[in-house]
């Protein structure tokens, strides 16, 4: 505990300038937002209520801790859990399919020749384009399928790249030490892949959040994305903005958890 406090203090000492500037720019943004909202209100603009002041949005956000959400009449945790569940499922599915496929396509020429055209055709299509179809064909799993699609390609491509980039010297060294093919795979290639995989995961998570919000906005009953749409439908704009803030917070938290996981994994694999 004392150690942690010392480290925190050290961090502030080293980074105080950055923190100060960060604080200044965020404050400036909030002030500008407040002024714009005030301007719209005082000139009786048609869309004054569409840009509520930061204070009102904060009130709506804090209101979620004491009452159910007005637009959906359930507590906000229902929505948070729903979105997190979908992202987690889509993420795990994407990992389960993309890693083996990436390994295959990266190491076997035949697999690459077979898979490449299909990947190249589907990769440029934004996952969001599939929303209307998936929501009907996959029903309740539609949003999960969209997240899967969004996370799948970054991971696939990065794993492929990682397999291809393995330093041949390392493989030779392992062979010289008597490793068989399987051991080369598990002791050399897979640990080497970890940074590439993590890049894919980080990109994938970002895309995944965009996908889940978009899918829920189009056709969701629960979830932070549908919170946005439903609040907007009912003219509850402070809650709509609060939902956007909520998504930002959740996104930072999930990326933080993923990065921590990377640390653990690297340590376990002996990379650190």
């Amino acid at each position, binding site marked *: 505990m004392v150690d942690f406090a010392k480290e925190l203090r050290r961090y502030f000492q080293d980074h105080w300038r950055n923190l100060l500037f960060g604080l200044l720019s965020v404050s400036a943004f909030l002030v500008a937002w407040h002024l714009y909202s005030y301007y719209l209100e005082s000139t009786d603009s048609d*869309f004054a209520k569409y840009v509520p002041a930061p204070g009102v949005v904060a009130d709506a956000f804090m209101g979620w801790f004491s009452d159910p959400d007005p637009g959906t*009449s359930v507590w906000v945790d229902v929505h*948070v859990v729903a979105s997190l569940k979908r992202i987690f499922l889509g993420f795990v599915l994407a990992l389960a399919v993309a890693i083996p496929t990436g390994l295959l396509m990266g190491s076997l020429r035949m697999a690459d020749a077979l898979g490449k055209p299909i990947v190249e055709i589907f990769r440029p299509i934004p996952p969001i384009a599939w929303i209307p179809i998936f929501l009907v064909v996959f029903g309740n799993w539609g949003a999960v399928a969209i997240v899967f699609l969004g996370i799948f390609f970054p991971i696939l491509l990065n794993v492929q790249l990682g397999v291809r980039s393995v330093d041949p010297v390392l493989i030779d060294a392992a062979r010289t030490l008597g490793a068989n093919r399987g051991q080369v795979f598990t002791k050399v290639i897979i640990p080497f892949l970890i940074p590439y995989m993590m890049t894919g995961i980080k990109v994938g998570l970002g895309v995944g959040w965009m996908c889940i919000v978009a899918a829920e906005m189009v056709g969701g009953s629960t979830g932070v994305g549908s919170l946005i749409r439903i609040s907007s*439908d009912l003219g509850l704009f402070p809650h709509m903005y609060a939902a956007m803030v909520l998504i930002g917070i959740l996104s930072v938290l999930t990326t933080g958890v993923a990065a921590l996981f990377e640390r653990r994994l690297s340590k376990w694999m002996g990379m650190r």
Partner: protein
Amino acid sequence: MDKKILMAIVVAAVVVVAVVAAAFILRPEGRTGTVYYDTSITVPNMKAALSTGLIDGFISWEPFVSEASMDDTGEVLMWSSEMMPNHPCCVVVASTNFLETEDGPDLTKRFLKAHMDATEWMLTANQDHDSAEYTLLVTLAQEFTLRNSSVVSAAMSHLEYKYEMDSSFTTALEEFTDMYIDLNITTNAAIADMGYDSVSDFADSYANETLLAEAGDIEPSSTILGTVRLGYLVGDIHQMAQFVANDPRVLDGDKSIFEKYGLEVAAAEGAPFSSGGAEMDAFVAGDVDIGYLGAPPAIVKHLNGGAKTTIVAQANIEGSGLVVAKNSGIESLDDLVNKTIAVPNVSSIQFLLLKIALEERGYDFVVKSS
């Protein structure tokens, strides 16, 4: 990122989850019996969702109710007219910015005159199913809703086209607003913010009866006097009046009813809209002069979103229904406990009516958490 900072973020995440879980556990208990709703299915897809068992029932507007009951997918448990007799449904809304332009009031009155003529034409046609007018009406309804003739025939028998705004209309507006306040969707503060003294003051003032009354005196015009940008919902048979008024076949000639009164009516940018809420957004963006939509979004987006609009006529009453799967064993609202019903969206009148009906029986109507 430094490991310690990462730990701090994870600890923060755990704390947030713990606080949320505590709030969740400590919240007050719900009432006996909960019915669940799902807003993730679009209205045209509700019938399919019902037949695959994804949902136990759905409530939507015609012609989708008749469509599901006529091909044996489902049966109608309750018509919206049984939930609230003569309930207002779709209304004609005008932008107050449009009304403040020089030609605004005159063009609006011409529009209303055309709306009244079209409505009366439909009412007369509906009285005699053997008449040529009725055949034309069914054809027009097919073209507008893209459903077959028997479906649209049945659909039109379950609603009534009506343009007058009488005292029962104002009372209904008041009841809807009170319900929204109960649901915490709008507040007395929002009503006061828009300049009304109370809910009844709002209900009285929001509907502008003068224009409709004066529209009766409008005479046809041989020249086009102005353009109106029109908003309406996709395939909504409640809003047939605008489709009828725009079609030259109705007057047996080469002029539509709109043109007869000197109006050029063009679809607004973004029309046809997928929901009343989207149409109200278009009003605020300045894209719509006059539009057809449901009364609830017209209320909610005016009070919460500050939309500068006013109701200038009704379009129809009733015309929605609650459908359950055939042979499901569901015979009354009481049988809906723990079942899932699809609704178009939370700002729809279908949701509001069902919510009112269930609340009367002491049931909660809550979103289904997946």
